[in-house]
């Protein structure tokens, strides 16, 4: 009986430790150290009033000088953001400067997205209230970002970043109920 009790106790303790073991498999979000990468993505936008989500896919690549968001389906649009501005190339045509010409929100969002993928939480904390203890699942960590600025908050809502060794997907929930989910493939060698 005592042995059985010890065994049961051991199981209980082991069971209690399981999440910790699983979590331990994922380094904390602060451990993200990737600065340059190329990853595939699949994005789904759930827009109220549309029965089906708007689904797109492509590749995102980030290096020291620029961020490239290349949607390949359903349209071929390559958007490049760097120090000189934002350009867009549709169907392989020559890149042209794009709007919003007078707003820097798009550039700001692109930079934020790059920072999210790089795990630059300190930099993001200037714009967002960051909660690294957001809801978790499957052993991954989740980091919640809510803009400090109410106007920005009304525009993009709340962002939740999920990941383990890398960012695996990003959920964006807007105040009006619209949402986006972007899932990233593994980092390409």
């Amino acid at each position, binding site marked *: 009986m005592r042995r059985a009790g010890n065994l049961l106790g051991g199981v209980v303790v082991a069971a209690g430790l399981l999440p910790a073991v699983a979590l331990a498999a994922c380094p904390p979000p602060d451990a993200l150290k990737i600065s340059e990468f190329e990853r595939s993505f699949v994005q789904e936008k759930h*827009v109220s009033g549309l029965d089906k989500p*708007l689904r797109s896919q492509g590749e995102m690549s980030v290096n020291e000088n620029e961020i490239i968001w290349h949607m390949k389906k359903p349209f071929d649009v390559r958007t490049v953001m760097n120090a000189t501005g934002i350009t867009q190339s549709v169907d392989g045509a020559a890149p042209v400067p794009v709007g919003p010409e*007078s707003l820097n929100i798009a550039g700001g*969002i692109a930079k934020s*997205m790059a920072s999210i993928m790089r795990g630059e939480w300190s930099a993001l904390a200037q714009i967002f209230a960051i909660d690294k203890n957001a809801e978790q699942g499957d052993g991954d960590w989740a980091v919640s970002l809510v803009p400090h*600025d109410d*106007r920005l908050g009304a525009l993009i809502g709340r962002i939740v970043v999920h990941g383990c060794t890398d960012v695996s997907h990003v959920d964006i929930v807007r105040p009006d*109920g619209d949402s986006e989910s*972007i899932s990233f493939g593994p980092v390409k060698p």
Partner: protein
Amino acid sequence: MTFRHLAVVAILLTFSLSAGFVATRIARSVDTNILSLLPGDAKDPVAADAMQKASMAASSRIAFAIEGGTATGRGKAVAALEAALIASGHFRSSTDDGKGLWVWLFAHRTDLICADDKAKLEAGQGASVAQAALLEWYAPMSSARGAMIASDPMLRTSRLLSCLLPKGMATMPRGDARIVSGSLIGPAYSLDVQDRIAAIVEKWKQEASYKDLQLSRAGAVFHAAYGAEHARAEMSLISLVTTVAVLLFYWVMFRSLRAPLIAVGMVTFSLTVGLAATLLVFGSVHAMALVFGAALIGMVVDYTTYYLVTGLAHPDYSVAERKAQIYRPLTLGMLTSVAAFAALFFFPVAAFRQIALFGGVGLVSAWVSTLVLTPVVEGRPMRVGPGALMAKTYAGRFLGSDFSGRMLVGVLLASLVIVVVALQRGETLDDVRRFQAPSSQLVKEEAHIRSLIGFAPTSSFILVQGGSRDEATMREENLLTRLQAQGQGDAVIWAASRFDPSQTMRAYDRDLIRTKLIEPYLGGVLDALGEGRADAYAAAKDAKPVASPAFVVGLRGETGTTFWSVVPVSDGALTLPDVAGVRLVNPAQRYSALLELYRTLATYGLAGAVAATGVMLLFVYRSVASLKILMPTVLALLVSPALLALAGVPYSFFSVMGLFLVVGAGVDYAIFQWENPGQEGDWTHVGIVLAASMTCISVGLLGLSSVLPVRSFGLTVAVGILISLLLSPLVRVSFVKDLFGGKHGD
């Protein structure tokens, strides 16, 4: 009740009513706009109105940047500051302006179009415009919303918002800075508004939890408050020093506390009535007119001085005899001074017109109260104090001396040399940008905010005129098209016609959008989205009228039957295309040109003022010889600006304004000298010295002002008065006797 008693009652009643009126109005009636010190353009009222409106629109903008600390702390600090500003009732957040603009653009999404999109539609490239909208739907974190599916699936509104706002304007500053921006409800140049905003900022700064944050400010309201703060300090200093001088001088002169108290009472009465009249006529009073009011102390106290001195000279005289002694010179002096102030009315400068009324009414009040009230409150005549004896001995000796013909020639030669050297070495100043040195701290903070939001305001603009609103708008559209064609389109910052086009343009664009974009491509967009209404843009036709955005209203105006609009540009030296009713306006250059013109005109006007005073003297004295009274004044008019120019105070329109007062007030001393020749004038000289000293002290203190117009005006009057006093014995010069003859030649 005798006439005298009635007069006293009337004076006291006038004072009570004036004081009550001033007390209830002054707090919300002080204008601090530096433009009120600049001449209006009576010959070009459209340009004058446009400059005024453009200035008012620009001055209403206000922005704060909050940096440092933690992001959460900044967020709370921003919310607190914005809430306090809105609660004051003097602030409208740019968020509200943005909402108003969004509502306007949404209402006009089927008849407004971006220039680039228009070119594409005209070139038959509507497909690319439709595709851009579709891509926006798919872009991450884009502005596309579910609510737009039904009413704006081609995202026309957000597209218009992005292309119509000025290029380079950042709505979001860098991450560690937060911006609070908006516009003032109420004039930025009202002390009331300035005080409320300053109090909110000060209270915000005192909040302990914001100590680690840095606040930067931008907006005309802060510059105006800075100027007003200086004006207040200057006014306080001038009032204090002059009052102390009045008390001290009068006590030393008359060895009695009654004399200074009477003087202060007369000053209070005169200034109160003058200020009440100014507020009544103009509805407001400029801060610089108030500063001048403080300087007026030294001028209005003169009349009381002359009366009290008659008690020293003739202690055995009755009140009537004493009044008779001074009645004519006092009245003539008052009339010449009031005429000099009245001359300021002829120049279209709001603040100087206020000064003219303030000074004129103040002097008349001082004259009335001196002749009616002073004898009542004086009691027994004053005694001779040590100061009076000293003044009689030294100043009286000088003022009572006779200038020989040789001395006159010496004075004339010296004056000539000074004037010639000043003409060669001195400078004139008409450039408005040098009038007031702004606060270096505010300039620094403003530059910082500009770097954060990437947008620099400009004062230059293109003025477009037309016989109707639509004609003016069409001309503006033509102008924008031509500027774009000659590669200068980027110089245009805002244009009302881009947001609210002419009827013709609106109809053309509506048709273009309908036939080249919506009808051929809306279906494809809806198919790609999988949902949406084919009549999404039909509802826009029946939409209720929406109020024009505030900034569009601020860019347009109407003067008489002329409709005009202002197109702010970043390049003040733009080459304008040949479009009817269009011209480039640079307010700083325009004001400077006006100041130069008025400086020249006013200088000629001085000759007229001297001539008018001469006629007045001839009328009163019926003697050509009385024109000798003008000699000290004429020399003062020539020498004082020359001396100041050599001392580094440039000759400006404001110097000439001061010289008009030299004509009016400076001639008083010569009149008293003329009226009281030889030994008879010993005590008169004491009165003259005391009066001139008070005027020089009070008006001369304006020389400490940080505002060049005030400094220049004050120094010119003070130096001019001093020279008028020193040269007043010239009325008895023998050389003049040889020329004109007459009993006063000795």
